[in-house]
């Protein structure tokens, strides 16, 4: 008998049938992959398992006993733990406080035993090989560190059933390995795990069986050993997807420099130099926290810096805010769509047109609703947003579809330079290949793209040139055959002197200029 069984679970949301009679069995000591496109219903199924949503019909069985989880608390009590897809940490509390939130050890007077909590947290971190100060406030942590705190929090429950909803999305390969080590330990201990990821290779590395969902329907369950990535993708999307990367045909015109930037971040000793050619895709590679996002924000003036000299098509420009950047045709897709990308209470349409409302002012300052709607529907078709309508509130879409809405915003904006920060984080294979194709189409139109990504295949498969970040500085500029995973990782992890990241600054700038 399976440790965990979900029987014919159905769930409707207003306007969406998220799940239709989906079943799933997970054995003790099994890592079970849950696979499906964006919006297939994976997170919804897991939230039902954890008592966060109530199913319209169907049953949850643990050890064959039917369970009714009216809240996550109940599910926890029954031994179910989850690492949420969206962060559930409290930014203003310390790491320990977050881990033990709701389960603080107390003394006889009802006061918290800080010492005990700290000791347990340290022990936990040691076991997981996590190096984070447990007393630091969570909002000081990088996304990856927050993810590890999230994982530590779920593990501290000593759950028998552990759900991991896209835990690897913000992690680097090293960190993913660390997580897998932990997961293997748990498998030894007989924990039943559900693992959700859009990375095929992860599924083949760690999972025992895989269940595929499509549009809220159960498709099949397979032994991982008996299948391959192509077959799984076909099951997910209902057709074959041969190569997710578009033809490696470069549209870059390396003689036509669109953007040159000399930026010195606040508190840094050196100035970094970035050069971008027309039609080029320039990758920013590096470990999590290596300063790529910071550089992107600095490039659009969203962040104060010590020094910023920018030249756009040979003309000096001063960018004091993202609005200045937009005016000059530089746009950013931020890495955190919920906090930085979307107006969640807005509809898809209002989100998409937000920064180019001027295009729809037939008689300024009035907006023509009709023109706006037509344009939006065309854009939504182009990026294939799966939503009931253009007036659907964006907060109710699945993560991947939300990301597509953010992308759609920039398509008709007429930008010369677009910075994509982790554009495919949490996005399914089908959508990924669509986004890659879109990027190629954009470069063919002469638009230059900076792509920040923590996924090396993406970098190597797509970029014309790559800048490697390490400790907040550009430490290498790679092009052509140099763009290769091993080389990138060597530069990204190289031990460098903080005072002098690239030997000599002048020299490094010179090297980079020659390289580009």
């Amino acid at each position, binding site marked *: 008998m399976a440790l965990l069984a979900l029987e014919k679970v159905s769930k409707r949301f207003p306007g969406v049938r998220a799940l239709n009679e989906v079943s799933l069995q997970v054995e003790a000591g099994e890592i079970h992959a849950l696979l499906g496109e964006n919006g297939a219903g994976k997170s919804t199924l897991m939230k039902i398992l954890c008592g966060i949503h109530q199913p319209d019909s169907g049953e949850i069985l643990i050890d064959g006993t039917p369970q009714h989880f009216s809240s996550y608390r109940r599910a926890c009590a029954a031994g179910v733990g989850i690492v949420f897809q969206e962060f559930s940490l409290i930014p203003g509390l310390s790491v320990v406080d977050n881990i033990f939130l709701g389960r603080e050890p107390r003394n006889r007077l009802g006061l918290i035993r800080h010492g005990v909590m700290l000791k347990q947290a340290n022990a936990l971190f040691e076991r997981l090989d996590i190096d984070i100060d447990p007393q630091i406030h969570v909002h000081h942590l990088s996304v990856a560190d927050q993810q590890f705190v999230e994982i530590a929090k779920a593990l501290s429950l000593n759950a028998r059933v552990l759900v991991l909803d896209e835990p690897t999305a913000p992690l680097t390969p090293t960190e993913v390995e660390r997580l897998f080590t932990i997961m293997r330990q748990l498998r030894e201990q007989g924990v039943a795990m559900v693992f959700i990821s859009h990375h095929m290779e992860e599924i083949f590395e760690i999972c025992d069986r895989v269940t595929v969902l499509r549009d809220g329907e159960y498709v099949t369950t397979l032994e991982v050993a008996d299948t391959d990535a192509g077959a799984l993708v076909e099951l997910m999307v209902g057709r074959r997807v041969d190569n997710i990367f578009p033809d490696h045909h470069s549209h870059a015109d390396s003689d036509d420099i669109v953007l040159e930037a000399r930026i010195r971040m606040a508190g840094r000793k050196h100035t970094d130099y970035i050069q971008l050619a027309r039609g080029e895709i320039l990758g920013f590679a590096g470990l999590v926290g290596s300063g790529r996002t910071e550089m992107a924000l600095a490039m659009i003036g969203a962040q104060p810096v010590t020094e910023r000299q920018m030249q756009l098509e040979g003309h000096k420009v001063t960018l004091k805010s*993202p609005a200045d950047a937009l005016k000059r045709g530089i746009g950013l897709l931020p890495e955190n769509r919920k906090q930085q990308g979307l107006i969640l209470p807005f509809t898809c349409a209002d989100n998409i047109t*937000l920064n180019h409302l001027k295009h729809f002012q037939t008689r300024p300052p009035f907006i023509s609703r009709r023109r706006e709607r037509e344009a939006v529907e065309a854009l939504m078709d182009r990026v294939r947003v799966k939503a009931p309508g253009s007036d659907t509130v964006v907060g109710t879409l699945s993560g991947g579809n939300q990301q597509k809405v953010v992308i759609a915003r920039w398509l008709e904006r007429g930008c010369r330079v677009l910075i994509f920060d982790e554009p495919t984080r949490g996005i399914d294979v089908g959508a990924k290949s669509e986004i890659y194709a879109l990027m190629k189409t954009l470069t063919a139109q002469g638009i230059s793209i900076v792509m920040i990504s923590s996924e090396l295949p993406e970098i190597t498969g797509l970029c014309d040139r790559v800048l490697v970040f390490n400790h907040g500085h550009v430490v290498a500029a790679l092009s052509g055959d140099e763009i290769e995973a091993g080389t990138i990782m060597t530069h990204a992890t190289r031990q460098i002197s903080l005072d002098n990241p690239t030997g000599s600054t002048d020299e490094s700038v010179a090297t980079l200029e020659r390289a580009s």
Partner: protein
Amino acid sequence: MSTPTSDANPQPRRQRRSRASRLLHSPVFFPLVGFIAVFIVMALANDNFLLPNNLTNVARQGAIIAIIAVGMSFAIFTGGIDLSVGPVMALSGTIMAGLMAAGWPPTVAVIMGLLLGMVFGAFNGACVAFARMPPIIVTLATMGIARGLGLIYTGGYPISGLPAGFSFFGRGEVVGIQVPILIMLLVYLVAYVVLHHTSFGRYVYAIGGNEEATRLTGIRVPRYKLLVYTISGLTAAIAGLVITSRLMSGQPNAGTGFELDAIAAVVLGGAAIAGGRGAILGTLVGAMLLAILNNGLNLMGVSPYLQDVAKGTIILLAIYIGRGRNA
């Protein structure tokens, strides 16, 4: 490159909502239900309530708060608040009165008063937008400053002896409609158009919905916040114009507690206090709801102390009924 074809998408997309569902989901729906309910109760409880004369009374009495609540709506829609509206109203009104008493022509005096309101609002806006201080505390501080300046200017005396023509704004009539009511309707019309048919209006809601995302997408958030508080100062000054003309005297201590009434009007109107959601017509309904409450309870001869209790209770009930939308 092998991307999927689009016919593989079976969902019936892009349906538009039905008319009935739109009404039910409109932010004005619940406020309107509450308003109608209270209206019916008041009409049943009192014979005089439905007299045209009394309904005009109600609209005129509610006009001051309704006008102030327009600026408050802008502030609340962006996720802010403006507590300084009452004293700014009083200050602008007294300045107008003072200038007229000093012999300035009414038009010039009125323009100066309105400008003063805008300058004061812009100061609030600058503190909020550029100095990045929390609106509640900025406007709490400027509330005291405006009150003090008004009192210093008048030395505590109300200013009377205004030219007869000035009474037009508070007591005049145009095509059978009293001027305060007309001014109110005009202010709402402009606000409606701005909020629903211009980009600025869209930005107001966007800032309230997610300020950081709005900024990163290339909208000049500080500029629009400045504008929002300037508008709030302006509407407070317009209310100051109406009240000064109606009383034909500049009252430096008018408007005490008006900020709370204006907030109540906005929230009764269905706006989310955290910003991003709300409708300006809802605010009008909210302000009129407060006005019929005051008027109806007065008409029924309810004792003043009991009125406080009754008013509070009815506000609670009204919000309770429409609460799903505000939580």
